[in-house]
């Protein structure tokens, strides 16, 4: 299933500073917002601009915690929130209780986001916040994003996408605002490491997270994914680093570190990191 995010308001090719001014105007029009906040590049930038524009009494950043949300990112989100003096609320979500989610269909994200927004929208209403917004950006339009439909169904708005912010724009402005996330690698949920059709379980999510943490501990930086193919961990690293990590001494350490987290086999992908790599395996395309 393919979901295309509306781009009728997109203004590509304009200066990021000008886009930010339009974003501030957009936020002032709403008056108060609840931000779906993960601590990633996009939602951190959005929450920061909302805070600067509306002030702390009119912004609430909400973290949805679950087994598919990496602990490391949770810690980063909390730390960044404290640094920005951002009002943050944490809620537990329970997408793993939904068999439609755990069956891991190609629209798995729809069920996850439905669970998330069903928790967050009532919070906004109860606190009198005028809008619920997320960090979807204009580049996401080209990806397979079934979760976007869940957002629309719950009335969630995506100002970064609507105002034409690309990922590059967001990194650029995040750097200008001195946000620690400006160079942070993208970090989609842990379930994205499990091939579609293969069940999502808490145990597999923990194993993926542990394996990626073990590789970080070994010194892996930049984009990293451990794709969970049952007892095989397929490791995707930046293509330019293949030679470094495949050197005999290091490859043994890589395999040992990953297999210590519960995998029987480890393999290093020859192409290297690809966002949405498992979409290819399932024949899923954004457009």
């Amino acid at each position: 299933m393919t979901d295309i995010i509306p781009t009728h308001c997109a203004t590509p090719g304009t200066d990021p500073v000008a886009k930010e001014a339009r974003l501030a105007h957009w936020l002032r029009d709403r008056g108060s917002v609840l931000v779906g906040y993960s601590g990633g590049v996009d939602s951190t930038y959005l929450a920061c601009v909302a805070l600067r524009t509306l002030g702390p009494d009119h912004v609430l950043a909400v973290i949805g915690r679950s087994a598919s949300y990496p602990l490391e990112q949770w810690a980063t989100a909390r730390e960044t929130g404290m640094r920005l003096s951002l009002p943050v609320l944490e809620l537990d979500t329970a997408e793993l209780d939904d068999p439609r989610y755990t069956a891991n269909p190609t629209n798995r994200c729809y069920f996850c986001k439905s669970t998330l927004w069903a928790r967050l929208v009532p919070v906004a209403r109860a606190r009198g916040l005028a809008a619920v917004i997320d960090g979807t950006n204009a580049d996401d339009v080209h990806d397979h994003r079934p979760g976007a439909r869940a957002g629309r169904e719950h009335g969630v708005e995506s100002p970064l996408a609507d105002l034409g912010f690309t990922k590059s724009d967001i990194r650029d402005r995040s750097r200008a605002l001195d946000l620690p996330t400006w160079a942070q690698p993208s970090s989609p949920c842990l379930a994205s490491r499990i091939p579609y059709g293969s069940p999502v379980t808490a145990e597999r999510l923990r194993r993926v997270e542990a394996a990626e943490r073990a590789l970080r501990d070994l010194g892996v930086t930049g984009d990293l994914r451990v794709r969970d193919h049952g007892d095989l961990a397929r490791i995707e690293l930046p293509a330019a680093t293949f030679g470094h990590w495949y050197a005999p001494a290091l490859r043994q350490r890589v395999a040992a570190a990953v297999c210590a987290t519960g995998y029987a086999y480890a393999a290093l992908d020859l192409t290297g990191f690809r966002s949405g790599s498992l979409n290819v395996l399932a024949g899923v395309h954004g457009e």
Partner: protein
Amino acid sequence: MANSAADSLTDALAQFGLMCRVEERDGLAIVHPGAASDVQLADTGVRRQIVALARERGFTHVAVALGAGEG
């Protein structure tokens, strides 16, 4: 995908000068290189060629098995 895809890739890689065994797992080609092939894999052009040969045979991903931890 039949085992023949893995066998075909093994043969193609041998013709390319890369002695290895290929295992098929759910659309993935897992390459188990012989000792003499390790050095070749460090070359970007060689890896690109392996991936191209694998895709011609229907594989979406190609990965090289790592030593320690293998069962």
